[in-house]
């Protein structure tokens, strides 16, 4: 069976310069794939290319359908939820309005309401702050809001851009624990991008290491964890 997301020969960049030089990777249905790499390796750029917010070329399929020429708004409709770099919070809007925007493409009101309740089960703090301006939330709460917004798309695939970035270790633990539950309990397929390799490898079943826009190592999470280079440069032992 082909993977849910298959990427072949992906190049992408800003203006004239290419940042990604031909990536091949995949996310299995129901699986978690991690994309590791140092700051500036091209992780965020990869997610942007997947969603079509920047210039890109190559072959990308989601559930067998080509998405490399599809507009961002339509990729969302095909079932891609994106927790972007910087969390993408609508600061001036309320928490509730942020969530409603997550469900913008959906017409099943009852389904949306049920999904919101389920998300409040994961993130009770969002329910408490539902009427608050999203800009007043803490970093951790904004990350929870971003994850909820992306899940309200009712995606087949969830893209996460450094969910641990700038957060206290305890909150990071919390969030990764919930991501694990979302993957196992709801069989949500996830592509997670992280600088924190050990964290991402705990969650993932497959991983790729990105260096200056090229994949240099790939394999199962267990294999990657044993890899000498990864251990020395990214895991620190």
């Amino acid at each position, binding site marked *: 069976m082909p993977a849910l997301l298959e990427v072949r020969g992906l190049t992408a960049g800003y203006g004239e310069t290419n940042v990604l030089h031909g990536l091949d990777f995949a996310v299995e249905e129901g699986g978690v794939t991690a994309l590791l790499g140092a700051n500036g390796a091209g992780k965020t750029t990869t997610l942007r290319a997947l*969603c079509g917010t920047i210039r890109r070329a190559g072959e990308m399929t989601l559930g067998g359908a080509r998405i490399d020429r599809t507009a961002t708004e339509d990729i*969302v409709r095909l079932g891609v939820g994106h927790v*972007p770099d910087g969390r*993408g*919070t609508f600061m*001036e*809007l309320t928490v509730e309005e942020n969530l409603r*925007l997550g469900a913008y493409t959906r017409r099943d009101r009852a389904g949306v309401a049920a999904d919101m309740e389920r998300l409040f089960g994961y993130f009770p703090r969002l329910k408490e702050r539902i009427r608050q301006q999203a800009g007043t939330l803490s970093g951790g709460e904004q990350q929870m809001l971003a994850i909820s917004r992306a899940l309200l798309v009712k995606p087949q695939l969830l893209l996460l851009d450094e969910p641990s970035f700038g957060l206290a270790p305890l909150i990071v633990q919390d969030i990764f624990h919930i991501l694990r539950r979302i993957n196992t309990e709801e069989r949500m397929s996830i592509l997670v991008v992280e600088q924190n390799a050990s964290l991402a490898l705990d969650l993932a079943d497959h991983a790729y290491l990105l260096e200056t826009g090229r994949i240099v190592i790939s394999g199962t999470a267990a294999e990657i964890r044993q890899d000498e280079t990864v251990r020395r440069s990214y895991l620190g032992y």
Partner: protein
Amino acid sequence: MTGLLHQIASGIASGAIYASVALALVMIYQATHHVNFAQGEMATLSTFVCLTLIQAGIPFWVAFVVALLLSFAFGAVVERVLMRPMMDAPVLASVGVFIGLLLIINALDGWIFGYTIKPFPSPFHSAHAMLGGYVSPHEIGATALTLLVLVLVWLFFRFTTLGLAMRAAAHNPASARLCGVRVNLMLSLGWGLAAAIGGAAGIMVAPIVFLDPNMMSGILLYAFAGALLGGIDSPLGAVIGGFAVGVLENLFGAYVVGTELKLTVALVIIVAVLVIKPAGLFGRAVHSRV
């Protein structure tokens, strides 16, 4: 005393007009970070279209609605054809396009409809002045209608999903796209809505100031002063600022500077706000996002 009440009442009446145009300016500013200097001329064009329809024998309110629908379409087309290609252009280039649009519409109005000053019918006729003669029936009707438009716009943005999507597209287009919002379409709709709001203001003010191609030029200045006073990024602030400028203009005109110098009130407000409190009364401090 009666004189003062009269000045305040008619200040509120013109304030309603400024508030509408100020709201139109702020809506476009929020979405594009540009001030649409052609907003006034677009409203004048709407008013000419309305007058043409009325003169063709169409009932006032039908003509009003048709003119606003056409204004909406025109605003959306202007965004699509003129503004979209300018999206990433430097500020000065955009300002150039706005000024160009202003001049073109102004010349077009003169060429098609003529430069003579035309009377404009009021839908609110009544033989006698109301409220003890402080305000004319037209001023009351126009103010009520303008308030109705403002309330409808507020309800739309506050309570509908489309209104929410338009706000999201204006505040954070990148993130809105990731929610599936068609940001470009929202921009066109925003321009259309702003053009219709401005058009309603033009049609309501025309019976008072009479219609000619330059009808809105002074009004745009007052509206801009109101938008700045309220905060150029705050729709509610723009509406309150518009009313405040209307009242201030009338009071200063009557008791301080004289009606000849009323327009300077607008200029003084603009300069004062920019110097003392650039964010306006209700706006957030200006910070450029990186």
